[in-house]
């Protein structure tokens, strides 16, 4: 019974954290895009626009869920459910941290440790296309149908380089369980270079990481591969006919796929929760220093150049600075250290990848459809195979692991 209780608590924590991340990822995306384009982004709801996600959720939930008369009702309603189901479920095999002891209970940080965790994520992500394809078909609208068609062709095509790019690090790591994979990446070469897969001998997996990342943009339908919802060609693509919660489900599914994908890339290529440099050189103090630097910057901006706006806006920055400093103090507490430090490294790596996703969205234009297909079949796929062959040769030359 103890196992069930612990699992239930962990599920609650992960669900709450995941949902909050999804809501705020959208806020962060809007903010980052705004700053790339020299705007301020969401600002009016709450201090510095921080309550914007809440407002968005209320707005979407309160809207009328309109079902057009020309759709196939059953599949029309099923499609967003499928999309969000497959998007949310794969987070349960991601390990967030090592096994820790909390209040005398020893438990792994992460929900389930499948012996075929990598394959599970591949299976779920390949099933994710049904939500989009079906939504496009059931809407009975030519723009939606084109969006659905494009997404299924695109996802089938990009799954190949993605799976092959995943196969080469697996040759080195020699296991399919995500937790074992992270444990394999512990340690440092020459005491300083981390043994992450992108640096690991015999053949550093930089190319597979890049191929994996590029295919990930296509798998999550993000710019520059957002052909299924290309606004200037297809109105809004597969979700043209959706309103209210149906639209919100697709929106949530996109962000959930992004989070899962970034976590998977972190786990397989970037060493999961292992720090960038050894704890002997003080890597445990990196979060504290980073947070204190952030706090100093916020305080400086808040005090020296107070924000012009509503009367209370000038307190926002200093208050955020103080909160940052307090969080930094929390990282110093010795009791919480074994829990918070791995989480910090995991979140910062995955967060950096998510930032890259947003960054690319703010920078690159969209591909044309034929360019998209030529790129994957004539460039990415052969490159992934060559990379796999070289890795296999290197692993074979190195001989079996001791």
């Amino acid at each position: 019974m103890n196992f069930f209780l612990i699992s239930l608590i962990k599920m609650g924590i992960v669900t709450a954290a995941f949902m909050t991340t999804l809501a705020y990822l959208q806020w962060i995306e809007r903010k980052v895009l705004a700053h790339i384009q020299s705007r301020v982004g969401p600002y009016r709801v709450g201090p510095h626009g921080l309550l914007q996600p809440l407002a968005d959720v209320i707005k979407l939930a309160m809207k009328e869920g309109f079902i057009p008369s020309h759709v196939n009702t059953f599949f029309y309603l099923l499609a967003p459910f499928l999309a969000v189901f497959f998007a949310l479920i794969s987070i349960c095999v991601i390990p967030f941290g090592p096994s820790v002891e909390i209040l005398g209970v020893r438990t792994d940080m992460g929900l389930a440790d499948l012996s075929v965790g990598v394959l599970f994520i591949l299976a779920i992500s390949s099933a994710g296309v049904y939500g989009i394809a079906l939504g496009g078909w059931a809407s009975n609208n030519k723009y939606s149908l084109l969006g659905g068609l494009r997404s299924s062709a695109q996802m089938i095509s990009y799954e190949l380089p993605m799976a092959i790019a995943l196969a080469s690090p697996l040759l080195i790591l020699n296991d399919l369980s995500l937790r074992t994979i992270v444990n394999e990446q512990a340690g440092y070469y020459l005491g300083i270079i981390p043994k992450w897969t992108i640096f690991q001998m015999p053949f550093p997996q930089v190319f597979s990481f890049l191929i994996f990342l590029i295919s990930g943009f296509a798998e999550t339908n993000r710019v520059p591969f957002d052909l299924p919802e290309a606004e200037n060609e297809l109105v809004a693509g597969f979700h043209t006919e959706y309103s209210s919660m149906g639209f919100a489900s697709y929106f949530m599914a996109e962000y959930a796929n992004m989070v899962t994908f970034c976590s998977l890339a972190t786990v397989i290529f970037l060493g999961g929760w292992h720090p960038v440099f050894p704890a002997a050189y003080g890597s445990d103090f990196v979060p504290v220093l980073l947070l204190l630097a952030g706090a100093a910057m916020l305080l400086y901006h808040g005090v020296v150049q107070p924000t012009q706006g509503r009367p209370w806006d000038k307190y926002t920055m200093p208050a955020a600075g103080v909160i940052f400093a307090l969080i930094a103090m929390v990282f110093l507490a010795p009791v919480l250290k074994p829990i918070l430090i791995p989480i910090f490294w995991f979140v910062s790596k995955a967060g950096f990848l998510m930032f890259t996703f947003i960054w690319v969205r703010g920078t690159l234009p969209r591909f044309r459809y034929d360019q998209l297909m030529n790129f994957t079949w004539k460039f990415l796929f052969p490159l992934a195979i060559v990379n796999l062959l070289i890795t296999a040769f290197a692993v074979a030359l190195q001989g079996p692991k001791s």
Partner: protein
Amino acid sequence: MDLILFLIFATLAVVCAVSLVVQKQPIGSALSLVGVMGSLAVLYLLLGAEFIAAVQLIVYAGAIMVLFVFVIMLLNAREENPAGRSWPSRLLGIPLLTVFLGLVAYLMQRMAPSMGTVTFGSFNTGAKEIGRSLFNQYLLPFEVTSVLVLIAILGAIVLARKEID
């Protein structure tokens, strides 16, 4: 617990299989087939064959059925109008089905005592063992199968390509 899950997913598989046949929408049939594949994957999982379950999902639900759905959407297949069935098929259909089911049941009953019982979680072979036996013991069949698939792909390309003068 295992038994309850088995009953749920076995029922689901049968219901999906029936729905596959009776559905009028082609896309409904395709999705029912996905349901069958998914339920079978769960049954494999209950037997302990995690690798087979994952591969079942990736290959069938993830690749083949997506292609089916893609083609159905591309051709924009509409609801089928049931063509009038001929009188021999109406006359013979149900008796033949009964005989077939009876035959299957009889054979199962004859074979059952000579086969051992299967318990949940008994096929506990990991991906490593499967890979090893695939590349040691069954190397020749494996390679021959891949050559066969290659020939099929080449044949499809030859059939589909446009004649160039």
